[in-house]
């Protein structure tokens, strides 16, 4: 496959960036998207040019480190992470635009790498259970009804990649926060801090400069883990319950 790539290049956080055009040849359709970028970077290295900076870690779709806006779609045309996206999803001769996640709360560090520390700070604000866990308890020491356990698991699938923010027309992080809140709200261990947690997390979310939710669902469509919209409903309900005191 021969492709034309328009890639966002930005030397550093305070530098002005621009889209630069690159051509890659003889790309195998079985390569992952990141492997295709690796090939390009080897070419750039060989020419003595600065390689393109992008994030990746596990490359098996479970860590949430990678994430690129590919021709206007977070993680590209398939419902998966960028590392699990393969070049067979594109056509020979295609022009692909590659940009970093765009949100003020996710400032660009370099090229396609953004700082997602805002997510960490939202978690630090309350996305945990403050009890001493000690040794692993007996499996059924704390009974959890199956439907609650299932829903907690669905929510816990969130890998914090930030595709929801990237795809949201308001750059809102409600799907991420909804997943984290629902995950804990469905379980007995999450109950004691339920109200305080949601208030602190939402406060941190707003302070980071994310937008509000307009319930259009672009986030769930972009989510590689298919986190559903109803977690945002749980988030909203928990905040409303906290408001009542």
């Amino acid at each position, binding site marked *: 496959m021969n492709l034309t790539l328009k890639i966002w290049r930005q030397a550093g956080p305070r530098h002005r960036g621009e889209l630069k055009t690159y051509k890659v040849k003889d790309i195998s359709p079985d390569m992952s998207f990141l492997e295709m970028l690796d090939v390009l970077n080897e070419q750039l290295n060989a020419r003595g040019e600065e390689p393109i900076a992008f994030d990746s870690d596990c490359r098996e779709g479970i860590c949430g480190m990678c994430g690129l806006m590919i021709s206007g779609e977070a993680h590209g045309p398939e419902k998966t992470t960028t590392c699990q996206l393969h070049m067979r999803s594109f056509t020979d001769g295609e022009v692909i635009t590659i940009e970093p996640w765009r949100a003020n709360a996710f400032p660009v560090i370099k090229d396609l790498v953004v700082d997602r520390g805002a997510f960490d700070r939202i978690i630090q604000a309350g996305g945990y259970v403050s009890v001493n866990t000690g040794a692993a308890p007996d499996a059924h020491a704390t009974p959890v009804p199956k439907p609650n356990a299932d829903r907690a698991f669905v929510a816990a699938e969130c890998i914090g990649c930030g595709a929801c923010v990237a795809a949201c027309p308001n750059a*809102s992080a409600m799907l991420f926060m909804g997943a984290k809140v629902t995950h804990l709200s469905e379980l007995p261990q999450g109950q004691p801090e339920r109200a305080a947690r949601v*208030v602190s997390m939402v406060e941190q979310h707003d302070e980071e400069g994310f937008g*509000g939710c307009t319930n259009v669902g672009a986030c769930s469509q972009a989510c590689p883990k298919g986190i559903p919209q*109803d977690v945002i409903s749980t988030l909203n309900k928990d905040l409303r319950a*906290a408001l009542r*005191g």
Partner: protein
Amino acid sequence: MTSSRSATTARRSTIGLKILMAGTGIVFVAYVLLHMYGNLKALAGEEAFNTYAEHLRTIGEPMLPYGGLLWVIRVVLLLSLVGHAYAAFSLWSRAGNARRTKYAAVKTAMRTAWMRWGGVFLLLFVVWHLLQFTILKFSVNPDRQGVNVQQNPYELVVASFQVPWNTLIYVLAMLALALHLSHGTFSAQQTLGWTMTSHAYRRAKMVGHAVAAVIVVGFLIPPLSILFGLIK
């Protein structure tokens, strides 16, 4: 668990604003449905329509003064409008600031833009509508003018919708309202946390479409009947 400080913070948060938007929006949905019912009285003729209009003023007498309930409703609607618009413009500006560098290539979610610009259009329409039928009560029909038209609600409605350009404004406004409500009614339910299962989520979407369909059809029957001469 929550101190009063954190409750204040929560109320001013993006979700707090959304809850305000949802609550006030539901007031409007309820009002619009009642309004539609009153409009449909036009199909039953002049007497039924004008009697209904007069009843709105005498309802609750003698506990309430003449027109008392109407003023209560007006105050509630005005406060709801202030709350709804305040929340909308605050969140709109927040969203604009949340992504100052735009994407070069992006598949936009058009519904968000429709809600915002459609909402502004509806606000302008409400001003026009109130001037026309409540505050100034003027007839845009050159053939039907005078105090008899202005003082008779049925006459004023018929005279107004015999004018094609005026009816067109209302048709456009009702289509904008349908778009606004099909998403807004669903969105309010999601914001109030009534959609915690995928089943409830789908149901909320259906309620949104149903409300929009009922309202656009119900509101357009009287004006179009007048325009095409079925009501004279």
